[in-house]
């Protein structure tokens, strides 16, 4: 603990967002620093590297106008922390945790480091409580459970925001009495999308906390906003016992920000220029979802990833898929057929579904129905390839039936523009569909 403020005017180099300060006494790695420009503009920064008494710091804002000589740097002796209090609920902040809803800042109950500490695997509880999202294709075939992280893999032009809005509006938790809160982190969002989401959030009956970094705001804040959001989520879940759903959109902007910052730091680029530590960095966000044994709350995560060039093997969706417990993949083809939500069932997956469904949580026959629907639909999709070669007339009647089933499955089960379905309605829709085609449910 330092007793006095440490202020330096000894900047030696400025390169992009990086400043090198000399003759610094006892700096800490990750320490928060305030940089004051000659015009008196204050900016946050963080210590990245220390070599003897030379310190490399990274400025979170725009470094335009800084100079060597007059610009001063003040060291705070503390790593970056988030202010926490229950009064957060209902508030909107920017990527530096300053209120943007023209209300004053609240008085924090405590401050917690935003990087969080890893959850002890021995303390984790197995996620197994069903969340009803109201979408058949999620509830029936790729069930979401409390404490899971399930990303939405979208492409440019697909209605991922309508899907997320639908989940926010319609989600119901099994088990009563718990408070349900949405923590929303928008990274690099356009104003158009931002206003769409704000309308949805303000209509919600349950509470929300929002962190908004719009497309023209500092890139560095895109790395901070999700960490603020998750620190708030952990606080509400594990100290206040709430069920928290964290929505982060769009992780592609996060990863691009990571790449931009990494290049500025002159680090070695990895695949497609993204830094080699991107897996660990993404894991430090995604792994904060979960439940703790013997505690009431939970953190569930629904990140949105826009796949560049619609390519699922691109590093961003690829590394995400390796960390998260499944994925919901949207398809442009279904979207063009006016199917909403346009979820492609075949590559979608929920790894934690097995424990969350069945007797006691959804319905006893859930697993059977879901396996059969998947199986028949997969066969129907195979038949489409065959149809392209031999034509419909060249196929047997049995094959034609599978073909028609696949169409009806997309049109009636996946598609539900009409609104939310309960899990019972979802399963019944599936059963009646299979019955109509007289398909055996084994």
């Amino acid at each position, binding site marked *: 603990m330092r007793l006095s403020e440490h202020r330096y005017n000894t900047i030696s180099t400025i390169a992009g967002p990086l400043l090198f300060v000399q003759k610094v006494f006892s700096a800490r790695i990750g320490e928060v620093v305030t940089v004051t420009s000659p015009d008196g503009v204050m900016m946050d920064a963080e210590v990245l590297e220390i070599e003897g008494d030379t310190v490399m710091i990274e400025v979170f804002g725009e470094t335009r106008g800084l100079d060597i000589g007059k610009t001063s740097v003040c060291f705070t002796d503390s*790593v970056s922390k988030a202010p926490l209090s229950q009064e957060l609920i209902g508030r909107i902040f920017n990527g530096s945790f300053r209120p943007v809803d023209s209300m004053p800042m609240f008085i924090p109950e405590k401050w917690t480091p935003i990087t969080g500490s890893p959850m002890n695997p*021995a303390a*984790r509880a197995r996620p197994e409580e069903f969340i009803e999202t109201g979408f058949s294709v999620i509830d029936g075939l790729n069930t979401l459970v409390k404490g899971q992280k399930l990303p939405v893999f979208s492409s440019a032009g697909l209605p991922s925001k309508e899907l997320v809005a639908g989940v926010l509006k319609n989600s119901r938790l099994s088990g009563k009495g718990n408070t349900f809160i949405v923590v929303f982190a928008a990274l690099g969002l356009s104003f158009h999308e931002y206003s769409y989401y704000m309308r949805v959030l303000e209509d919600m009956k349950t509470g929300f906390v929002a962190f908004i970094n719009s497309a023209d705001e500092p890139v560095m804040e895109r790395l901070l906003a999700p960490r603020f959001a998750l620190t708030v989520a952990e606080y509400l879940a594990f100290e206040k016992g709430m069920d928290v759903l964290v929505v982060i959109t769009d992780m592609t902007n996060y990863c691009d920000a990571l790449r931009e910052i990494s290049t500025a730091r002159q680090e070695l680029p990895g695949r497609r220029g993204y830094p080699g530590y991107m897996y660990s960095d993404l894991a*430090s966000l995604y792994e904060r979802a*979960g439940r703790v*044994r013997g505690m009431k709350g939970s953190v569930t995560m629904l990140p949105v990833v826009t796949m560049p060039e619609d390519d699922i093997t691109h590093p961003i969706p690829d590394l995400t898929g390796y960390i998260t417990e499944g994925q919901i993949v949207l398809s442009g083809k279904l979207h063009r057929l006016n199917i909403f939500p346009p979820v492609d069932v075949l590559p979608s997956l929920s790894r934690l579904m097995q424990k969350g469904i069945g007797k006691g949580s959804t319905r006893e026959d859930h697993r059977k129905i879901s396996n059969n629907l*998947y199986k028949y639909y997969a066969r129907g999709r195979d038949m489409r390839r065959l149809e392209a070669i031999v034509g419909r007339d060249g196929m047997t009647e049995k094959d034609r039936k599978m073909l028609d089933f696949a169409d009806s499955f997309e049109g009636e089960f996946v598609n539900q523009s009409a609104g939310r379905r309960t899990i019972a309605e979802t399963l019944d829709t599936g059963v009646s569909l299979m019955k109509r085609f007289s398909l055996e449910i084994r």
Partner: protein
Amino acid sequence: MVIGRILGISGPTVSTDLKGLRLYERVSVGQSMLTGEVVRLEHDRAVVQVYEDTRGLAVGEPIKGTGLPLSVRLGPGLLAGMFDGLQRPLKQLKEEMGPFITPGREMYGLDYQKRWVFSPMIKSGAETGPGEILGSVEEGSFRHFLFCGPDSRGRVSQIREGAFSLEEPLGEYEGGREILGCHEWPVRSQRPYRKKFPPSGPLVTGQRSIDFLFPIARGGTAIFPGGFGTGKTVLEQSIAKFADVDVVVYVGCGERGNEMAEMIEEFEDLKDPWTGRRLMERTILVVNTSNMPVAAREASIYTAVTMAEYYRDMGYHVLLLADSLSRWAEALREISSSLEEMPGEEGYPTYLASRLSGFLERAGVVETLGGRIGSLTMVLSVSPPGGDFTEPVTQACLRTTGAFLMLDTALAQSRHFPAINWGQSYSLYACELGGHYREKVSPEWEILQKRCREILQKEEALREVSEIVGAEGLQDIDRLLMLIAEKIRTGFLSQNAYSEDAFSPPRDTCGLISRIFQFYDRALEKIKQGISFEEASQTEDQV
């Protein structure tokens, strides 16, 4: 003790002016006493890699050397345990610091207070050498042999019997040196043995596609690479549940925390199909999830393999499972780049392949120093980015591993699990183990295996034809072959990990495939007699 100061910090690496350090010595870093390891020595400074989060560390904070390399403690009490990459017991950590792990807490992997009942197997006056068995304790329902440490030798002057804790000596050598029930071993050095043998005898996994088509030998190594969603983790866990070995060491290296939670709960309930004991009693878990510090992830596989070797040295058959080796390699890459080393392919350090083969060569069947036969088998998963098998980690593994079980995204999407691609996987142990199964299970084993491969191969060719001309356009014999191949794929090769069928002993495996071929032979006979395909396959179905 000499105390040095921190000179510089960059990510997980710290430089110090501390003198007298040795390469790979364990050091304690900063006021919060984080664990680190010396990775580079220069004339006026040393570079230390820190195993915990360095956030908040300041220049000028103290650094102390311990004089010892990074080691694990070996003794009774490891089984059913759950450790992080530095062998800190996670359950005790949870009790002390709650559900989140905060850095700077040293804790031993063994419980030094717990009392064990020791029954000696030697008499006082006996001459003992390294690795010689002194006696045993009951570790759960498991017989844990205590043996002389690899560097102790001498005549035993006194040996005790009865309850003791790990702090108390079991007896004395002549000259007054104490005999202890536990010892330390540096994780990066292989434990010594008398002689090594080539892998031999099957390691039954209970997975039909592995045991029948691509068998794994005791003392061998196998990798299965696969993109995300291809079921690597489920397969690893199934093997951990059903493999016929004495001890299983499972490393969750840079993987998901929720999956580990699931596994722990399951292993507490399930029983070992071979002995009927609780599964957890034969399992050691080393867990370093993806959000835990990267440097500890790199150390975790060494921690695990050292514990596995320790049980091997008692004359047991040990299986080491790691999920996933790619995360280990990525940790290596992160550390290498923070040391500013020259990168090789895809940014991995150029010593990736040699480190990997050094690790893989710790598997094998050995005659221990005490003269027993033990084995260590490794089954490792690899997560190639984008499902591309030409990447450096998969390729480096292929040079030293004996079995390559390729997990296929297309198979996984058609919900065929385990999604092992039968066209491209291979096992170098197949020939040798075929003979074993022929003797022990069925004289037909190898013949059936050969026929099975042929059918799957032919189906591949036929499928292309049938996609053009339609199934009806094929000859009856070929249609029958397609039908049989489908039966093999859906009824034999695929196995639901969440059902009764998850474990299939070799006898059942053989029974199932020979029934399919009996059906094939009968139907084939009928078709040759002129009966149509529909009829031949229909009538048989009813039988």
